[in-house]
């Protein structure tokens, strides 16, 4: 038996072509075998970890939740002491998972203890790691359990990749000072509207004062979208300085900033901003015109009815839709214009938009009754 194999082997080896193929196959087998071996080791490791985790949860989970329900006693501290006997990774992950869902007195206690027992320091160190996964995991934990102590480590994320910046910015919105946010916003580059959500989320958590601080440094941000977001947020909160910013913003070369000026004007009152919006209805870019129509809708100014009726004949679809919606919000004056356009206008698109808006307002009224 063995001799047969030996002969086969020798024959295979002797032919150079088959030798090459044999080597290739052997290499592949070796590579796959090594990977399989590695996977088996990883799976075993994982099972060990799962067992450790189960032990940890069985021992400590219930006590944690009952300690959580009593925010001002020493139960939590006692729990943390006991948890020291377990793998720090398990404790960190458990705490981050649970504290994501709660705030209040118990949350503050846990955060304090998290820092006191050194877990936060470990996360801070890991946030400087070269390995992106370690970094992000640490930042995610800091997002849940970070405190003002972690500000320097979070500010340092301005040099890291985009996700790290996003996490750091959101965390700092909760625990940091406005100058931290400024530092991160300076390096933020938003390339599409979809990417704006994290910035909006961070800014919406800030107090009016902090927002004012950041807004005052408007010039420091290069990204047009960031400026736009700031401008509209500032206008919504009626911060001082918005009015002065509006005029130069409306004439900016950056289309995003012009859009921001329209959005901001939509939240303000007064003649100046109304003039700005009416002028924006003539802007060469349709995005600006569309935004202007929507802003006018929010303001519900009867003086805008006629220009909006003109905008119904705009070439761009979104401008027409915005104009129709805005007229729909103007009540009877707007409805009159809409009806007029729907009935008499020879521009078919304008007539259609007007008719559709009339129908929509009708349905809204019906539903409200």
């Amino acid at each position, binding site marked *: 038996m063995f001799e047969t194999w030996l002969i086969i082997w020798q024959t295979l080896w002797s032919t150079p072509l088959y030798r090459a193929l044999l080597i290739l196959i052997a290499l592949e087998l070796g590579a796959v075998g090594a990977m399989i071996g590695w996977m088996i080791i990883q799976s075993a490791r994982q099972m060990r970890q799962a067992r450790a985790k189960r032990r940890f949860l069985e021992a400590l*989970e*219930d006590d944690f939740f009952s300690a959580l329900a009593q925010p001002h006693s020493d139960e939590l501290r006692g729990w943390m002491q006991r948890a020291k006997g377990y793998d720090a990774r398990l404790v960190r*992950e458990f705490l981050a998972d*649970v504290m994501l869902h709660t*705030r209040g007195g118990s949350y503050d206690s846990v955060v304090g203890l998290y820092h006191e027992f050194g877990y936060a320091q470990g996360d801070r160190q890991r946030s400087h790691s070269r390995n992106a996964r370690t970094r992000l995991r640490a930042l995610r934990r800091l997002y849940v359990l970070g405190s003002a102590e972690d500000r320097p480590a979070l500010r340092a994320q301005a040099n890291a990749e985009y996700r790290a910046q996003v996490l750091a910015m959101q965390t700092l919105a909760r625990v940091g000072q406005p100058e931290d946010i400024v530092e991160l916003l300076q390096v933020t580059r938003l390339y599409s509207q979809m990417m704006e959500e994290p910035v909006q989320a961070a800014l919406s958590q800030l107090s009016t004062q902090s927002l004012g601080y950041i807004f005052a440094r408007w010039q420091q941000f290069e990204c047009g979208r960031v400026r736009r977001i700031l401008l509209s947020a500032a206008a919504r909160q009626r911060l001082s300085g918005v009015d002065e910013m509006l005029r130069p913003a409306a004439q900016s070369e950056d289309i995003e900033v012009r859009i921001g000026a329209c959005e901001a004007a939509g939240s303000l009152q007064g003649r100046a901003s109304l003039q700005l919006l009416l002028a924006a209805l003539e802007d060469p870019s349709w995005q600006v015109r569309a935004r202007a129509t929507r802003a006018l809708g929010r303001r519900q100014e009867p003086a805008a009815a006629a220009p909006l009726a003109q905008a119904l004949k705009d070439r761009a679809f979104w401008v027409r839709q915005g104009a129709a919606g805005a007229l729909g919000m103007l009540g009877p004056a707007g409805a009159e214009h809409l009806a007029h356009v729907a009935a008499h206008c020879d521009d078919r698109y304008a007539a259609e938009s007007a008719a559709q808006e009339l129908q929509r307002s009708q349905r809204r009224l019906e539903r409200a009754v």
Partner: protein
Amino acid sequence: MKPDSNMPSSAVAPALSSAVAPAFPERADRAPLAILSADGDAIVQRILRAVFERRGWFVCQVSDGREALDALQAERFDLVVLDLNLAYLNGFELLDALGKRPAAARPRAVVASAQTQPEPVLRAFQLGADDFVDKPLVPEILLARIERLFKRPGM
């Protein structure tokens, strides 16, 4: 190169070892308040259970809208704490169903949701919710609001 073994959103690999409390546990007749808690998230349920049980209240926990309706048929509850994002029957529909019950048998309803935009909040109140709390939950505030709803001495 290990993946996260606890992903809170996974239904199959929960972060906690214990499941939510069994559907219809024995109710101690002396419990001052009977609460039905409807939320799909295991951790939130666990927190609520700990907070309510610490107060000595009776808690029954369900994870979706249809189970909530079944529980309401089976037992009488004083209060329903619900999330808006329930499976099968969402929070709004549950509120609607609650509103259709006669006033005597209608439990109070407190909505706990992460959706803090005006529209969902308004809609919840229009459908008859008694209160609305934000998520992440602040247990002290939730308790205070519940107590205000049931202003009775000796609780």
